């Protein structure tokens, strides 16, 4: 299901526009306002309000079942694909209310790309994996695709490793390379925001380090929201961290503050390993 969701997620309109460089950090890329979410009778997100900074890395942490992945999936309406889900409140992505009835969900998922825990390249060549989103958007000009392919692979720090074998299968890459291929595929369609759901949990430490360095480099151009079970990873890569517990946002602070002087006792207990 996740991979079919991504298929739609990267469909784009024929014209790929680069959003005007809105260089000012500190601006909000996503406004989350009083969001509640239930799966049937199960109320899993309670009154979540937060601002996600433009061109920053924001990490969501918390124990399993705290709602962090659920919230992440709200940000590109991935939860629409689950039966019996109801969402209230408002999520505004760079000025657009993405839950408004007039919103084009496919366009939302083009603007808000996603990278999953398990890398999911298509059983196609490396090249075709990267340009897939462009092709289904109707772009077939080889020159445009070639350029997008190189730019995206460079952006994902994978170009040098695969440039001589672009026509080989994407499934033949190592786990870390596959994950970077998925990142290349996500950025090929020029999203504004990249959501990452546990992008390193299946990778070894070296591959993890490469992805972390990549995340750090990507924030020059993209707003990134990452869900991670790995506290150290949140500490290393993010600018701001939100701590979730039982579906509530307990604390949301600049990462250096969160990890040196958390305000809430629950946060303190969680990041010092006393529960969770």
């Amino acid at each position: 299901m996740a991979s079919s969701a991504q298929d739609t997620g990267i469909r784009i309109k024929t014209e790929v526009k680069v959003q005007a460089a809105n260089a000012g950090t500190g601006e909000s890329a996503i406004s989350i306002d009083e969001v509640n979410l239930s799966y049937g009778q199960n109320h899993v997100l309670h009154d979540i309000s937060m601002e996600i900074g433009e061109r920053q890395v924001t990490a969501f942490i918390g124990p399993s079942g705290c709602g962090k992945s659920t919230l992440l999936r709200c940000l590109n309406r991935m939860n629409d694909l689950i039966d019996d889900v109801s969402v209230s409140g408002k999520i505004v992505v760079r000025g657009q209310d993405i839950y408004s009835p007039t919103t084009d969900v496919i366009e939302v998922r083009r603007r808000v790309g996603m990278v999953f825990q398990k890398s999911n390249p298509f059983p196609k060549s490396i090249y075709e994996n990267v340009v897939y989103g462009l092709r289904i958007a109707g772009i077939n000009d080889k020159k445009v695709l070639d350029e997008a392919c190189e730019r995206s692979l460079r952006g994902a720090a994978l170009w040098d490793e695969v440039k001589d074998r672009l026509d080989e299968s994407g499934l033949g890459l190592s786990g870390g390379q596959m994950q970077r291929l998925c990142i290349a595929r996500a950025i090929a369609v020029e999203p504004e925001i990249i959501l990452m759901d546990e992008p390193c949990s299946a990778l070894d430490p070296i591959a993890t380090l490469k992805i972390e360095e990549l995340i750090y480099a990507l924030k020059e151009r993209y707003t990134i929201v990452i869900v991670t079970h790995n506290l150290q990873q949140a500490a290393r890569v993010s600018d701001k961290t939100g701590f979730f517990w039982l579906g509530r946002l307990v604390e949301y602070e600049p990462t250096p503050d969160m990890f040196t002087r958390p305000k809430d006792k629950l946060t303190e207990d969680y990041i010092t390993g006393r529960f969770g």
Partner: protein
Amino acid sequence: MERYHFEEGLGTIKQRLLSMGGHVEERLTEAVKALMERRQDLAERVARGDHEINQLQIEIDDRCLKLLALQQPMASDLRFITAAMKINADLERIGDQAVNIAQNALKVINQAPLRPLIDIPRMAELALRMTRDALDAFVRRDPELARQVLLRDDEVDNLKDHVFRVLLTHMMADPGTIERALGLILISRNLERIADHATNIAEDVIFLVEARDVRHQNPEAKE
């Protein structure tokens, strides 16, 4: 390994420590100069303390704390950061000693000279060089240079004992010299403490590079 922004963080700490070392050396040089040239204005200026050194101390500790919390440094990186925090404290203390030297100098220079100053400038020169070399050893990760700093500490201690004995005889002979002599004894003690702080820095450098704790050992065992 390619942890660029972590390396950058370490580089900034090193650079700030050097900058702090520069300020501290400057204050110390000025304090001693004020004493030797009997310049009250200079002594007063140094005695007021150094805002910049205090700010750097806070900034460096804050950077170290954040790198520890956010980057989980290990092995030589971990030793670097813990060494940096200790060196930071030692440098700040050296800065404080420079302030104390200037304060003590004020008591000495408004009275007639007691005797020509020979041992104290020699101590000052040694203490300054020890501080400078200890920081150089830190920057270059040079344990040999650090060991030379350790060896010089005894010389400073001996000079201090000598200054103390000589001034004691002056005070016994003429109670009118007590205030001046006491001022000079305190200054020699300030200088001796500076050499101790430089020694601490040198020991931290050896720990940083060789992961060997050489504190509280006789000098031969440190080699």
